[in-house]
């Protein structure tokens, strides 16, 4: 019975803290989820990480907006992708409608902002000629704050199609009058059916027996001893892996370079300046494992895989030396080609005092040990001589 109560209380959107930029780096100003959340107070920022409150209406906009895929709605992306795969008919137009659009649609979502790039391009992979989004105009909708999200996703999907040589009109928005959408297929197959919800409940009930204690942990109140281990584990974002997997199987004509502005794009191109000291903070805190370092015969090299980068900018804000910079524009074709570039390559030295390694000219002490010694002496002199260096 306890399990049943727990299921009833489970939030419609769960958070995987290790993927959340705000959890990994408290300096992160990422507010992607809160920016699109149409309900006031449904997303709350904690000291570390975010929390979804009971006000959530499960529209799924935050899950789509989170570049790292840290937010997981109860109807997961995988379930939705399965539904799309079962609905799509090759050679036809796949229509996706929001709950307020009129017309016959293959898929009806409460809000179009639930769509991610991988879901939106799913029908194309299934052989559909075109994907249409029925847009009755978001201005009169209670969820209108989420509207920029699906427009961003649409724009990025169009850029992806263009980079793949498929043309921009493969995914498009179609203006329709407001009304009540009609499902083409039998409603029992849709994810929003009662049967699916009950099945999900039964699945969760079965799964809740063993790791109940683990799931009870409040978001943001993870046992602290695991934080360091959690951030030091290397793993990719499942959301990004879904997209990459989809792009690999997309009927690509010819990959061409397509440059888009980096703002509002879940992709980034990095450059690292000469200030880099090889502290590895960017690598440690990167939620998606886009940065990896190599050490070969006294040389330190930092590799960047642009296809894994979600543009969360954790590396940029975390870097103390302001060495990491996100470029203004980014080439979308990196998601197809998956290039690996070396951003930093420098000889590595070992400090005699602290035992840590550092980049730069050979020296006995690392710049930090030298600086700390100088600073202590300087402060002591100021204490004694009132600011005048002796």
């Amino acid at each position, binding site marked *: 019975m306890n399990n049943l109560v727990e299921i009833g209380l489970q939030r419609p959107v769960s958070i995987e803290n290790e993927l959340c930029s705000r959890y990994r780096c*408290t300096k992160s100003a990422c507010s992607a989820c809160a920016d699109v959340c149409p309900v006031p107070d449904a997303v709350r920022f904690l000291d570390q990480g975010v929390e979804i409150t009971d006000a959530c209406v499960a529209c799924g906009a935050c899950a789509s907006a989170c570049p790292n895929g840290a937010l997981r709605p109860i109807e997961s992306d995988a379930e939705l992708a399965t539904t799309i795969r079962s609905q799509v008919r090759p050679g036809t137009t796949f229509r996706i409608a929001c709950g307020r659009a009129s017309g016959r649609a293959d898929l009806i979502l409460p809000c179009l902002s639930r769509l991610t790039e991988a879901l939106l391009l799913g029908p194309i992979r299934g052989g559909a000629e075109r994907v249409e989004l029925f847009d009755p105009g978001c201005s009169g909708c209670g969820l209108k704050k989420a509207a920029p999200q699906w427009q961003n996703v649409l724009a990025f999907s169009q850029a992806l199609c263009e980079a793949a040589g498929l043309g921009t009109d493969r995914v498009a928005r179609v203006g329709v009058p407001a009304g009540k959408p009609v499902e083409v297929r039998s409603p029992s197959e849709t994810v929003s059916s009662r049967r699916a919800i009950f099945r999900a409940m039964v699945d969760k009930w079965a799964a809740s027996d063993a790791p109940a204690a683990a799931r009870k942990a409040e978001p943001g109140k993870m046992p602290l001893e695991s934080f*360091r281990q959690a*951030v030091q584990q290397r793993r990719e974002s499942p959301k990004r892996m879904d997209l990459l997997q989809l792009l690999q199987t997309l009927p690509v004509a010819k990959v061409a370079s397509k440059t888009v502005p980096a703002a509002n794009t879940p992709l980034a191109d990095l450059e690292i300046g000469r200030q880099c000291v090889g*502290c590895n903070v960017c690598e440690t*805190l990167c939620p998606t494992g886009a940065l990896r370092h190599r050490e070969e015969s006294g040389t330190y090299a930092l590799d960047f895989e642009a296809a894994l980068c979600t543009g969360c900018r954790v590396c940029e804000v975390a870097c103390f030396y302001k060495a990491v910079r996100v470029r203004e524009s980014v080439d979308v074709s990196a998601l197809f080609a998956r290039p690996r570039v070396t951003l930093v390559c420098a000889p590595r030295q070992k400090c005699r005092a602290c*035992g*840590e390694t550092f980049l730069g000219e050979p020296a006995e002490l690392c710049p*930090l040990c030298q600086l700390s010694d100088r600073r202590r002496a300087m402060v002591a002199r100021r*204490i*004694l001589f009132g600011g005048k260096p002796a």
Partner: protein
Amino acid sequence: MSEYNPVLPLEAVERSFAKKGPKQYTLWIDLEHCIGCNACTVACKAENNTPVGVNYTTVLEIEEGDFRDAKKTPNVGVTFVPMPCMHCGRPACQAACPVGAITKREEDGIVLINKDKCIGCRYCAWACPYGAPQFNAEAKVMEKCTLCVHRVEKGLLPACVTTCVGKVRFFGELNELTAVMKQKRSRSVSITVAGANTNPSVQYTK
């Protein structure tokens, strides 16, 4: 309290411990009588079990005067300056930490590093104007003076204070300490570092 220090009245220490709510525990270091014996450094290492190379508090020797200055009488001397963590009001280390591992405790003003969260990036050491945070190369985490928080919570004085041979280190609440300082010592020193506005709490007199 057998190691009771005659300069600081016992009541002031008791009042410091008894004081409720937000307060700032800190140290007062009297440079006039410091003999540079480094007993505080050793006691701190023993108490906190720090590895070689990690010192929560050090004693610097600052030389002054010049033999070769012919115009004045030679007036050469060495002053010893113990340097613990300053437990700043606006800690620069806290602002620099990318993972929020450093906190300033509201209830007693002690700045602590959460070693379970620390990723060992040493940004706090770069940011601290006083060179206080120390890198523990074995555990790959940063450490620093905790003002012996484990002792203070039990109502004991920090190890460096109880062990101080010259009776020049005093522990207490900031306002209690400054009140006594004003009565007993004429020259208190405020530590300011150009460009750093961290409001350090540790008090020095000379």
